[in-house]
């Protein structure tokens, strides 16, 4: 496994601008080598890797030290003096725990409190190691002794009177539509403890201590916390019963220390206190907001329409937004550096290299080459730190072969603090819907799994081999800057798998086509999921796997709307913007054991498509390639006029003879039926499509992720390479395309 890791900031940089790298070593300080390289071709075969070194000030050997990651989300109200010397107080909240108890290593889970492990002081309302509600104050712990049930809502409360030495704790299961025999539990105990000292209040965690000058946390809560309140009075047991019966955590303003309204400021990291004290806080590590609260009744699915039913935050002990590492290396990209995909290559102690990938965009002013490669940075990020294949599950059944990883991937299983991908689930089983580039990204590299960026390098290598100048632009910049990023390019080529797209990205691409642009969609399963870029969390993507689609997990009911933008999450296909309307095809099937080939159709003889097949006599196209042996494979898209594929589009080739592993995706079948695999169903195919756009431009789509893996076959002398070159040359010809 690599012994040195890192990440870049910013993700994209123009020549002449500065870039920083956060580097950390594993298992103690060690020397490491660093250099910046431009990635031209990935490690598809022995000796195939091509990189071009970019001389910079950081070339050479450095001494690195470990940099910690404080994984786990929480909220902090950093007004220590407001929570000190409380001799009497009551803490209340609604909670829905999702991991009870924590196993295999038992852990406490703090709902709310000031507990500081390094000081051994404070208070905390929490679940104890067995999952029972407990109140910790000073050295005293009072537990109900009855574990809560995962995914059930409770009213929880603890009343503390340190003058009389009385602590009362009460957990009350809320009734809903799920049958339950569970009863409320109330415990009153006598304790001896001093009023806790001043300290910041945490929701969902306790302070662990200071490391590297930063607060680190522990005892993270897994689950939802709703309407937490803190009063400066000790409620009597009858008053606690009355509050639970009334399903209320409210307290009179005059008694309040804090009345936190978690339904306020949902798109942000702010936590709003409605009490007169204005003890506002902030979330850390981007817990999930816009989640259903204890009172959600299903009458509304959109948090903006019923915010009072969305007053909860879902915390996870493995949430991670910002690793927060200190910059280790800083340099300025030379003004004459060409646009491209770059990486800081790190190596220590002869271990595998680690790649911190970034992008040099074209100069902000000046001439542009005619071609732009649109790097699928949204998709790369959504797949980053993908660990699901390394966990027990049915991966082999949908891959059609053994899941394949390398020793660098194993790093993720040894270092869970690196966080997961949007294909993973949290430790409580809920889906990871936030993914951030502010951490080492273990699998965004030119090695390992031939997928996404690694596979896209086959396309860049092919452009280089043909002497075609190109710029590299990114999803992230397209989202932020829109159409101006693409203006001036005669042709834009996508990567092999631009699966994740924001509305802003789709709008820009549609406008580009509307102005006569030419788009080569060089992959499959593109423009599939909606994502958003939260303004409050730069470098992060939010996505919700709502309603339908081929999903690694299923979004929680009632939580389909993004917290950051209010957008309805899920498939673009379900939101009136199926990929078919943009690129003529949409996702239909996937399988990963062996890729197949295309066969030319009669429509390919249409004079409109003549330019595509110049110099090609073969009927069979792409029965070779680096991506599982063929050009048609991994994930496949097909033409579908009912989803918006232009009726005049030509399907110039379709794939066939797919293996049993290729299955029709579930959004393609209303009722599950047999015979839906590649051996039986003609719907399992990739359609290669060309259409003239009314704006004067055109679209060419391969409909297959594996396609670009065939470009370099036999020294680029093959029918896929020739066909692609034919298309590119015509697309670079300014002569407009006329619609039929």
């Amino acid at each position, binding site marked *: 496994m690599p012994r040195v890791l890192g990440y870049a900031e910013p993700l994209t940089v123009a020549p002449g601008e500065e870039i920083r790298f956060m580097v950390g070593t594993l298992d103690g300080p060690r020397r490491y080598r660093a250099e910046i390289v431009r990635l031209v071709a990935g*490690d598809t*075969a*022995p000796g195939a890797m091509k990189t071009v070194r970019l001389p910079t000030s950081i070339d050479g050997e450095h001494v690195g030290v470990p940099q910690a990651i404080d994984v786990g989300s929480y909220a902090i109200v950093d007004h220590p003096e407001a929570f000190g010397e409380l001799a009497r107080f009551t803490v209340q909240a609604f909670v829905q725990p999702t991991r009870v108890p924590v*196993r*295999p290593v038992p852990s406490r889970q703090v709902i709310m409190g000031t507990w500081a492990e390094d000081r051994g002081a404070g208070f905390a309302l929490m679940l104890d190691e067995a999952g029972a509600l407990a109140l910790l104050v000073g050295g005293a712990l009072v537990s109900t002794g009855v574990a809560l049930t995962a995914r059930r809502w409770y009213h929880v409360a603890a009343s503390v009177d340190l003058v009389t030495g009385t602590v009362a704790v009460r957990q009350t299961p809320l009734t809903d539509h799920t049958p339950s025999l569970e009863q409320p539990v109330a415990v009153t105990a006598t304790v001896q403890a001093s009023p806790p000292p001043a300290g910041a209040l945490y929701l969902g965690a306790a302070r662990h201590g200071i490391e590297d000058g930063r607060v680190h946390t522990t005892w993270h809560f897994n689950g939802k916390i709703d309407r937490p309140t803190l009063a400066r009075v000790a409620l009597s047991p009858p008053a606690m019963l009355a509050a639970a019966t009334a399903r209320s955590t409210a307290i009179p303003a005059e008694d309040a220390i804090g009345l936190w309204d978690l339904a306020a400021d949902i798109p942000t990291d702010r936590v709003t206190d409605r009490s007169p004290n204005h003890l506002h806080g902030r979330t850390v590590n981007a817990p999930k907001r816009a989640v259903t609260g204890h009172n959600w009744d299903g009458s509304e699915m959109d948090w903006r329409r019923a915010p009072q039913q969305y007053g909860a935050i879902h915390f996870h002990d493995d949430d991670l937004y910002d690793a927060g590492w200190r910059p280790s290396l800083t340099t300025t990209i030379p003004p004459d550096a060409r646009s491209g995909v770059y990486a800081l290559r790190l190596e220590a102690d002869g271990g595998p290299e680690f790649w911190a990938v970034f992008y040099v965009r074209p100069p902000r002013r000046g001439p542009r080459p005619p071609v732009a490669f649109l790097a699928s940075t949204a998709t790369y990020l959504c797949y980053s730190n993908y660990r699901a*294949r*390394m*966990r*027990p*599950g*049915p991966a*082999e*059944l949908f891959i*059609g*072969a*053994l*899941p*394949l*990883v*390398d*020793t660098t991937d*194993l790093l993720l*299983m*040894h270092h*869970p603090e690196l966080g997961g991908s949007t294909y993973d689930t949290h*430790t409580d089983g809920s889906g990871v819907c936030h993914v951030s580039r502010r951490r080492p990204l273990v699998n965004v590299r030119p*090695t*390992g799994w031939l997928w996404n960026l690694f596979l896209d390098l086959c396309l860049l290598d092919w452009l280089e081999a043909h002497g075609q100048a190109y710029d590299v632009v990114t999803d992230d910049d397209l989202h932020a800057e829109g159409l101006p990023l693409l203006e001036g390019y005669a042709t834009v080529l996508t990567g092999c798998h631009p699966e994740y797209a924001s509305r802003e990205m789709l709008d820009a691409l549609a406008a580009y086509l509307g102005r006569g642009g030419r788009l080569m969609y060089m992959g499959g399963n593109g423009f599939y999921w909606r994502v958003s870029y939260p303004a409050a969390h730069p470098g992060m993507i939010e996505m919700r796997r709502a309603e339908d689609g081929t999903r690694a997990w299923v979004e929680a009911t009632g939580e389909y709307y993004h917290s950051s933008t209010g957008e309805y999450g899920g498939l673009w296909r379900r939101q009136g913007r199926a990929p078919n309307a943009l690129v003529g095809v949409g996702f239909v099937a996937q*399988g990963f*054991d*062996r890729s197949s080939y295309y066969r030319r159709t009669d429509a390919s003889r249409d004079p409109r498509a003549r330019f595509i097949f110049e110099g090609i006599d073969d009927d069979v196209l792409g029965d070779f390639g680096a991506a*599982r*042996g063929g050009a048609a494979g991994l994930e496949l898209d097909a033409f579908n006029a009912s989803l918006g594929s232009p009726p005049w589009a030509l399907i110039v080739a379709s794939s066939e*003879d*797919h*293996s*049993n*592993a290729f299955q029709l995706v579930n959004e393609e079948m209303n009722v599950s039926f047999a015979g839906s695999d*590649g*051996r039986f169903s003609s719907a399992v195919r990739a359609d290669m499509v060309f259409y003239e756009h009314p704006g004067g431009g055109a679209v060419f789509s391969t409909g297959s992720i594996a396609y670009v893996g065939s470009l370099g076959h036999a020294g680029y002398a093959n029918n896929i390479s020739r066909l692609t070159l034919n298309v590119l040359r015509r697309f670079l010809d300014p002569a407009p395309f006329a619609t039929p």
Partner: protein
Amino acid sequence: MFAIDPSRTDLALEFKRRPFGPHSPELQAVLNVLRSSRHCQNLLLVCTRPHAEWMLAEKQPGGLPPRLLTDRVFTSLEDAEWHAFRIRWEAVTGQPLSALDRA
């Protein structure tokens, strides 16, 4: 439920000769059993030297790292697939496939 007929070693031979599909429907049925069996679902292939060496590993519950099975190093994906098929077949049917070693 479908059960593997241990006498159908012809299907094992089909897999050995072509571990990556398409497969006959009968072999696919066998694979469905072997890959979904509770005891067989936990295998993973780890590349330990790029393009040259792979080891099987056993996935672990609870988020723990896979356990590398270091007793055997494979020099091709096909060899690793065949070995996984063999040990699963034997685990499920109780019948060894050693007769196919030289096939």
